[in-house]
């Protein structure tokens, strides 16, 4: 097990390097000379040249990349082009908000998804199953930004039960968290159901029945543990969509998180901020995946063999 974790950690390194490289290269694709942009209109040749020198833009591209990596490792993500403040500072005030939102959402995803999926699988083709699955189908079809607007209109504007936007009180969390978690919950519910139904048809369930075990023992002890194996992977992937989803949901509900920071930075072409934000979100996702992989391994020891 320890060996597996070490090995898996070793595999993460090239991925992280790859991610930084992709982010770095994308920013290189930006048309125009950053020094010119940074210097502002009407700056003299000399100013631009100095700026270029100080930013290291004269060096060969791979040296620039290594400089960039060196900076990232030391927590230096560069400075915002807009207000000149270090990007890391901006991220560190935004990240906790997004993190909190993500945690509530993933909780909604897992709890609602699992309950609906299991209930559906126990009584397949019942009216309860049918209604859960119709809701789940809607859940994966409604765009989160539209669902957010609908919820906002209904519960905040029309009924006035909840605040419209912002991020001040616990009441503010409810709508964004539901909006963000709903799609994932639908996917987890569908996955749990089909995984359960598949497991229930397997030989070892027949064995369990042949032993005379009680129905609930068969479902919760014999079926569920096996059915959870693919669900774990899906939950892990869902976390990624969720991080991406914060971009939209934070915009809808005017939450000052990391996602909104990235979008605003793109609009104002504040590239270091975009770079930093995307990088941090990706690194978080890489580590979440690592944890999911380890969990998967714990649940499914059979892959030891291969």
């Amino acid at each position, binding site marked *: 097990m320890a060996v597996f974790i070490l090995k898996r950690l070793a595999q993460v390194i090239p991925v992280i390097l790859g991610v930084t490289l992709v982010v770095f290269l994308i920013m290189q694709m930006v048309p125009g000379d950053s020094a010119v942009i940074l210097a502002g209109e009407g700056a003299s040749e000399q100013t631009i040249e100095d700026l270029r020198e100080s930013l290291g833009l004269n060096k060969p591209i791979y040296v620039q990349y290594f400089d960039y990596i060196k900076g990232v490792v030391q927590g230096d993500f560069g400075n915002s082009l807009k207000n000149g403040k270090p990007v890391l500072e901006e991220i560190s005030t935004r990240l906790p908000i997004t993190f909190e939102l993500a945690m509530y959402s993933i909780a909604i995803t897992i709890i609602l998804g699992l309950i609906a999926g299991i209930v559906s699988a126990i009584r397949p083709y019942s009216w309860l199953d049918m209604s859960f699955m119709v809701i789940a189908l809607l859940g994966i079809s409604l765009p989160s930004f539209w669902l957010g607007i609908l919820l906002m209109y209904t519960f905040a504007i029309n009924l006035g039960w909840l605040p419209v936007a912002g991020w001040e009180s616990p009441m503010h969390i409810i709508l964004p968290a539901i909006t963000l978690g709903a799609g994932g919950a639908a*996917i987890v519910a569908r996955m749990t159901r089909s995984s359960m139904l598949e497991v229930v048809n397997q030989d070892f369930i027949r064995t369990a029945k042949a032993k005379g075990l009680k129905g609930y023992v068969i479902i919760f002890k014999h079926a569920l543990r096996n059915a959870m194996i693919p669900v774990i992977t899906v939950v892990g992937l869902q976390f990624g969509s969720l991080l991406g989803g914060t971009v*939209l949901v934070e915009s809808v509900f005017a939450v000052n998180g990391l996602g909104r920071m990235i979008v605003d930075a793109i609009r104002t072409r504040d590239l270091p901020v975009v770079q930093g934000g995307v990088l941090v979100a990706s690194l978080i996702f890489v580590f979440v995946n690592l944890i999911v992989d380890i969990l998967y391994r714990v649940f499914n020891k059979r892959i030891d063999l291969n």
Partner: protein
Amino acid sequence: MSENVQAATLSQVRSQVKKKKRKELWQKIYSNKAALAGLIILSIYALMLIFGPLLSPYDPYEIDLQNKLQGPTLDHLMGTDDKGRDILSRILYGSYLTLGVGFSAVLFGGSVGILLGLVAGYYGGKIDSIISRLIDVMLAFPGILLALAIVSALGTSLINVTIAVGFFSIPMFARIVRGSTMEVKKLEYIDAVRTLGANNVIILFRHILPNILSPIIIQASMRLATAILSAAGLSFLGLGAQPPSPEWGAMLSAGRDFLFNAPHMALFPGIMISFLVLGLNLLGDGLRDALDPRMKA
């Protein structure tokens, strides 16, 4: 002589078999209610796409400030927006934008992804390691964040959104195709054609690709849904289609500012996107049931 007769009857048998095949496939789709519902929804969208401009009662760009922010009436079935433009007409005109972006993105992402997956899965070894690492890196970007990063570099426009969304569809296709290829590669009929002396091109495109079409088709229909959602999302954020373009995501975004007094501005574009995605998901579910009962959501 008798040989000719035999050949003639054989060709007869052949055409009968073809007819039967077609009938079976149609029955399979027809008997699958989810797929059928999906198909019906999608054909409505297809009709809109083709006849939209003809059916539009108004010019989608014509500003009529006197009639701005009207709710649905007989004159304007879906009401008007903040500049008095007819929302129905805009939606009809916009259908080619939303659908076009989705299809082109999946076409682009799909073809690159399928090729990468085939090569990685079939050849294995170093090539596979390299492609797999590449896929890993692309998958390490959460959700539409990769697309977002690309748009930020290329600049905000609908074409760039298409490229970005297509790009982030690549690893999904590549991964599925790689897995299926490795599975099919092991089957004995592949060994049999290798033994007959077939080269890699024949094996890849005549024997492996046709046998992994099911997962590809299913993935494509699901991906199309995601691509449309992502592209609309980017436009919603103001990073894709720019006003006054009648792209549905952008229309929805514009409607957001008038939620208090004109909620229909956000309602209708949202409904249009949702139903389109619902249709695709239904079709995807149905195809999955019909083609490959083992695959799951």
